[in-house]
């Protein structure tokens, strides 16, 4: 419904959205400013928008280079590895399954698809406790594998890739078979390149989820050396504010990789985060 309004209404709308934009970006702006202010000043007057340039300091960022602060980079590394590996594996395995469900007609296909739908409707979060016990038995506590393994075949991603693969032309598959291509060759050489947009959207969705996820990693990773960023940042929160410098600079640094990727791949962000609407 694209419609036009009179000039007065447009002016009102622009004012409304400018105000909203200000409100929505205000917390981020306040955090960025706060990260350049001395902790003492923050204790006195809290987070605010005053631009007192003479007060500006890099001491909150310098806190990262202290012995205590260096832990932050271990968390950052853990988060990077877990996010990269989890995203890659989830995309690979989920697309394989989604593709299989979409293009082949085989005995048990419907049953398999129903199981996917059931796991989609009943989220694994409800099984945190038995999964945790299983991870203890498998000796995967405090390992990357413990965080990653249970979620690499993601029902939502399977569903998404299945829907996407259903829309691909089947003539190509037939033609490749005639040319003597194996079933796996067809997938890797023909279908994977054709599913690039789907991979892009899911990479953003899974990557963002993995980078920001707290509960499951926190259950599996309980030694400070194996923390990811969200766990580490939460651990820095204390009522006495003794880690405040690191908390401020660390929060900023945790958002920067996401912002950079967003600037370059805005389209995939939007497709990924609204990928649910392909449902149906």
């Amino acid at each position, binding site marked *: 419904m694209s*419609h036009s309004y009179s000039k007065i209404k447009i002016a009102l709308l622009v004012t409304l959205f400018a105000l909203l*934009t200000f409100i929505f970006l205000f917390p*981020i702006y306040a955090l960025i400013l706060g990260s350049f202010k001395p902790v003492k000043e923050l204790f006195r007057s*809290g987070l605010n928008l005053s631009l007192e340039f003479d007060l500006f300091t890099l001491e909150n960022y310098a806190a990262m280079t202290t012995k205590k602060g260096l832990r932050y980079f271990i968390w950052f590394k853990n988060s990077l590895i877990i996010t990269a590996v989890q995203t890659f594996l989830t995309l690979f395995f989920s697309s394989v399954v989604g593709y299989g469900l979409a293009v*082949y007609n085989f005995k048990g296909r419907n049953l398999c698809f129903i199981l996917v739908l059931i796991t989609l409707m009943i989220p694994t979060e409800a099984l945190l406790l038995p999964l945790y*016990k299983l991870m203890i038995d498998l000796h995967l506590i405090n390992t990357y594998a413990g965080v990653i393994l249970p979620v690499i075949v993601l029902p939502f991603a399977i569903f998404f890739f299945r829907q996407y693969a259903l829309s691909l032309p089947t003539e190509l598959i037939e033609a490749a078979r005639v040319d003597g291509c194996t079933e796996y060759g067809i997938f890797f050489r023909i279908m994977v390149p054709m599913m690039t947009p789907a991979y892009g959207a899911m990479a953003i969705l899974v990557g963002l989820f993995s980078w920001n996820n707290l509960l499951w990693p926190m259950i599996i990773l309980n030694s400070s050396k194996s923390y990811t960023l969200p766990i580490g940042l939460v651990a820095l*929160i204390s009522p006495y504010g003794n880690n405040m410098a690191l908390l401020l600079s660390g929060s900023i640094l945790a958002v920067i990789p996401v912002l950079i990727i967003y600037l370059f791949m805005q389209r995939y962000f939007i497709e990924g985060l609204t990928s649910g609407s392909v449902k149906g």
Partner: protein
Amino acid sequence: MINDLKHKLLYSKKVAPYIFILPFIVSFSVFYFYPLLSSINMSFQKVLPGDVTYVGLDNYQRLLNSADFFTSIWVTAKYTFWTIVVLIPLPLILAVFLNTKNLPGRNLFRSSLFIPILTSTIVGGIIFRFIFAESESSIANSIISIFGFESLKWRFTPNTGMFMMVLLASWRWMGVNLLYFLAGLQNIPKDLYESADIDGASPFAKFRFITIPMLKPVTMYVLTISIYGGFKMFEESYVYWQSALPGNIGLTLFRYLYLKAFQEFNLGYGAAISMMILLMVIAINFIQLYLTGAFKKN
């Protein structure tokens, strides 16, 4: 010979589909079905280190007699209710406004409202803790003082605590829901509005009788994800209160599970909570399938 046969079998068109779905079968069995069974089993046990005894329905009995459990259901329901109240009508109306053809800066506004989702709940929560600090000079308290209100202890009273959790979720998800509704608006055939114009329909009538009904599928979808999101909410509460929950503010279902299972190591009791959560999710699914008429079709 045998290798040759293996190769042929693996590459046959009959076997290939099963190789493709194998990852799901393995993952489903190991990380879904087995935990489900072990959770059912564990919920009838009392689990102490090196000492497991069956206690029958004891865990369930204690759970159903626990006031905290019902508090957690109530808190979860309230949180879900408020996120729905905010995160459906508001982005819908904003999407209609933003869909104005000659509105300058449309894309800029859209992108700006989308930015908060790039921060994690944790980072967002850390900022909100500063903004809503108890001190008189905190941003939130200075704002309400303009209107003549006393400073509030935001994180320490039930209503303001709920407000902070809903606000954090709304801040992060508004832009995403807005995009859902924008996409929905673009799918409405233009001639519907054109014929309404010919009939002389008012903008409000068009909104009420064309836009709202045509957006029903998107609205239902956003409602579904909001219910799920609300149901499994954990982070919005954890970032504000890590160990002590003053007066049970923020004691959601998953906070209660985390508290009993992972902070107090009460595994049998935790498994019983898991099973109750599972039952509730199944119930919600059935209600939803019933309401959307999925049963009638089949």
